[in-house]
């Protein structure tokens, strides 16, 4: 879907990422498809973000490593529990279902950015 080459962005791998986005679903498999599309979208916008996927059981052990957690819509029933675990350390939200299904990386990046700005 994206036609830019990932090598064109010059600032990748330099310094700390400006935003750390963790996605979580049942096994971290379907979200990892979206991760690649979000990386492409971030790179094309010249943003240095760290984006990765995990299974929802390992959120607790990743505490402090992320600025925002986005849950796959298929695990929306754990939202309240994950919010309780994460507390005030980071915002937690369910990924927009349509953007998730369509692999729309840019929309999900925008969703993550809005959440960290407290919107």
């Amino acid at each position, binding site marked *: 879907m994206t036609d830019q080459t990932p090598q064109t962005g010059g600032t990748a791998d330099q310094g700390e990422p400006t935003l750390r986005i963790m996605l979580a679903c049942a096994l971290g498999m379907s979200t990892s498809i979206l991760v690649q599309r979000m990386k492409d979208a971030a790179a094309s916008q010249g943003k240095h973000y760290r984006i990765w996927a995990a299974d929802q059981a390992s959120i607790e052990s990743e505490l402090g490593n992320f600025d925002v957690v986005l849950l796959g819509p298929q695990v929306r029933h754990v939202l309240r529990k994950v919010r309780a675990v994460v507390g005030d350390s980071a915002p937690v939200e369910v990924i927009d279902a349509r953007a998730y299904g*369509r692999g729309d990386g840019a929309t999900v990046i925008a969703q993550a950015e809005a959440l960290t700005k407290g919107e």
Partner: protein
Amino acid sequence: MASFSDRFSDGLTVVAEKVDDNKYLNSLKNSFSYFLPFILVGSFASLLRSLVSSQETGLARWLPALANLDGAFTAMNFATMSFMTIPIVILLGWQLAKRNDTPTHATAILCVAAYVTVVPQSVQALLEDGADGGTAAGLGEGALGAQGLFIGIIWTVVITELFRRLSGIEALRIKMPDSVPPAITQSFNSLIPVFLILTFSAVFGVLFRLATGSYLNEWVYAVLQHPLEVIFQSTAGIILMAVFAQLFWFLGIHGGLVISPIRNPLFATAIAANIAAVNAGAEPTQPLTYGFWVTFIVLGGAGGILGLTIVGALMSKQEDLKMISRLGFVPAVCGISEPLVFGVPLVLNPIYAIPFVFNTGISAAIAMVAMNLGFIQANTVDVPFGVPVFINGFIGFGWQGVVVQAIILIATTLMWVPFVAIDDRRATRESQDQGAAAPTDSKEAVSA
């Protein structure tokens, strides 16, 4: 359609949340998640046996020295499958200790110790000529393996609850001076509760045996676990479970995850029973295993959505559906359904409800017919999730498995055809209506 996410305050969603919030079900689900790799490796030991060390089917036909490895693969299998109750008791005790805020190490060890007090601590020894050699100290497979799983789980819950209550009683704590390191204080704090609980467990075990004539694990297996296995391993039971899981997917909730606390212990006991049967020279009899589930029931993604990607990409007149079908094809080959579930979307979509919910049951029925006819055999090699279609079938069930997968794939693909046609007609009609009112395309109309 934009607000379908707001409509999730529905019965099944509450069930999903309750299951995940429940301390015991959630801990059980996590314990089996941690143990799953060992089940897979243990079942792969059976594959190594038949490919390498077996003198009938393996490389040992030509290299007889390889037959010596047979013991190694059997040992691998024993250490995982035939021993599974002990690690599950440890993992579950550990998980519940975290939720109960009791010391994790002490709780886990206490659970194992308490479990051992209620099972036979001796095994029948047989002499080489088959004569009775009396009894010897040891734990039998009935206590260590899958047959002990249910009572292992039940007893762990009982013990962790007792430990949580007793640990909360101030009077049972041994007072230590402040200069004593906290780790030592903690183990002394556990001393009296551990003593009381193990005494209770051991005495209960003896009284139970006096009352019923059998050990607790044997009784629970005969009265509770075995009948449950028979129900869930029947064709009707398997189809019902498959359709039930799919109802959650219809709401956009991971169905397999929700039913995993019930399903995964049954999977574990089934594959262990199959391997034990084959090792004893008998036929494996338990169809519903993890490998059966990922190979046949959710073949190409829950709901047979691999078929939808094919129909959508080749047949549909909607650009949207064509695009999503192409996007979702490769994930679907690996069993991942989310791009279609949320992209089409299939969630709460009345047009696709029938194939989406019932394809999983149809798949289960086809696989069970093949098994009842003896075309495929219950598996002894399990398959991890994510292995592409046909490769997973071959690993778990040989070429016959691939044939059954092909039949399921054709059947579930055909199921989608009329519904994609209906959806196409709806889309055409909508775009015509809108074309008359205003020159917008249907995609913008959806998001507006």
